[in-house]
């Protein structure tokens, strides 16, 4: 085979291998049925070709048993395809709890990645091999879509909310990354690469990179400068929920519902605070829509996440 004529994509994640098995099954079924139809057509067309202009073959009306058969067999096959595809899809929607969490912001026309330790990258993502990586993604403008063919993963990056996907790379190397939801003039240029490294090299890379300011630090600074601390600090004059230790915990809402304080919840609460009012508080916080960038929100989330420890008196986890 020509070296510049690849016919099959590289298989570089645990998920990729599983998708390819299903793909092989689909190809098998397709080749079988396509051949069956082609051969039958060819055979009938030749065997029963018209031999004289006045030929009048006897009519055949059809056959109920045959109809039932060729409904039943495809039905069984497509149900296998459905269940198989769905189970892999559910797995893709359920990242392991210990996954390395990386935040992604898509904007016209670049990818911004932020590692938990503070490294930030543009259009390039360094990850360790053999460890699940969860991507939490959001768009600053239009819908984008992060696609890494070698991992067989793809997820839209949508402006109003966080979307997630995950992968576990199985080999080191460099893999292409594309924006695959049309996003404007330079859509084809919104590409990047994923660099999968050995864990030790990844550690070294983390050291090497010069994090200007860790997200937690930047978040803490923003928490002050945006005025969040004026209400959400323990000694604040305005009564607002304290944020220490809330990350990942259930929060009771004024509507009686309970919501988990995850990334999306915190982002919503910053941008559109009146959407989810915590039980026992008044909707007084102004919306920060348009006043903070997606990167800044990620830094704030990192900061809030870092506020571990037991919630204090005015906390919102329990009443």
């Amino acid at each position, binding site marked *: 085979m020509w070296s510049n004529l690849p016919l099959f994509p590289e298989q570089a994640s645990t998920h990729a291998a599983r998708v390819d098995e299903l793909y092989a099954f689909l190809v098998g079924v397709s080749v079988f049925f396509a051949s069956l139809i082609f051969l039958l057509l060819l055979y009938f067309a030749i065997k029963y070709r018209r031999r004289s202009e006045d030929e009048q073959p006897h009519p055949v009306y059809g056959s109920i048993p045959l109809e039932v058969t060729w409904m039943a067999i495809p039905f069984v096959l497509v149900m296998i395809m459905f269940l198989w595809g769905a189970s892999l899809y559910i797995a893709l929607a359920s990242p392991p709890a210990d996954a390395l969490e990386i935040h992604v912001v898509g904007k016209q026309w670049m990818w911004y990645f932020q590692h938990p330790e503070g490294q930030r990258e543009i259009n390039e993502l360094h990850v360790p091999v053999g460890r699940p990586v969860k991507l939490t993604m959001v768009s600053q403008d239009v819908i984008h879509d992060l696609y890494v063919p070698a991992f067989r993963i793809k997820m839209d990056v949508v402006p109003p909310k966080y979307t997630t996907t995950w992968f576990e790379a199985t080999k080191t190397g460099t893999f292409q990354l594309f924006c695959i939801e049309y996003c404007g003039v330079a859509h084809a240029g919104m590409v990047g690469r994923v660099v999968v490294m050995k864990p030790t090299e990844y550690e070294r890379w983390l050291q090497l990179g010069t994090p200007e300011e860790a997200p937690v630090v930047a978040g803490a600074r923003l928490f002050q400068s945006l005025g969040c601390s004026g209400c959400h600090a323990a000694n604040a004059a305005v009564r607002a929920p304290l944020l220490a230790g809330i990350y990942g915990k259930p929060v009771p809402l004024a509507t009686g519902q309970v919501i988990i304080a995850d990334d999306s919840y915190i982002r919503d609460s910053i941008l*559109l605070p009146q959407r989810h009012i915590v039980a026992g508080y008044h909707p007084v916080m102004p919306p920060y829509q348009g006043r903070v960038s997606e990167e800044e929100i990620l830094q704030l989330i990192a900061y809030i996440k870092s506020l571990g420890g037991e919630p204090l008196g005015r906390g919102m986890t329990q009443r």
Partner: protein
Amino acid sequence: MSETRAAPAHQFDDFEQQYEAASLGMWAFLATEILFFGGLFLGYTVYRTLYPAAFTEGSHHLDIVLGSINTAVLIGSSLTMALAVHSAQVGRRQAIVGFLALTMLLGLVFLSIKTVEYGHKFDEALVPGAHFVYDGPFAPQVQLFFSFYFIMTGLHALHMVVGIGIMAVLAWLAWRGKFSPTYHTPVEISGLYWHFVDVVWIFLFPLLYLLGRH
């Protein structure tokens, strides 16, 4: 869509076939219309599910008195329309014209009241877009509510304007004696259209004005 001759159109065998075709055609068109408004009903349902409080908030800013009066006016116009069809069936020419005129009049009353309501919203800066001003909670989502309010009622009002135009043509045709007990299909199927517009309002009224009123 329909012929105004003494004989059925050439493609039909008789008036009955022609009437059946026209009536079926209009019902099929109304099915289309249901789905056309349906997109808006879906949008409304989705956002109301996501932002129930904001939609309640927004609904409080609508004028329930004017809305109720308008509902009654529109139901009245449906009655006069039905009576116009009845008059056509029994062949009372002047009554057709009279009831059609009354239907148009009630339609215009409805549109006038709607205009007054729109005017209030302009004064209160509740028209979505750059000039939307709202100080209460959930301001962005209240704006969503008003987007739906204006688009849904606006599209409904547009249908009424078209309907009034159709009534005017019908009244003119009726006045010239084009309809008879054997042939009055246009009156009948235009009536279907007018009643449909009424039915849309019957749903818009509670969805926009009433839900979350208490």
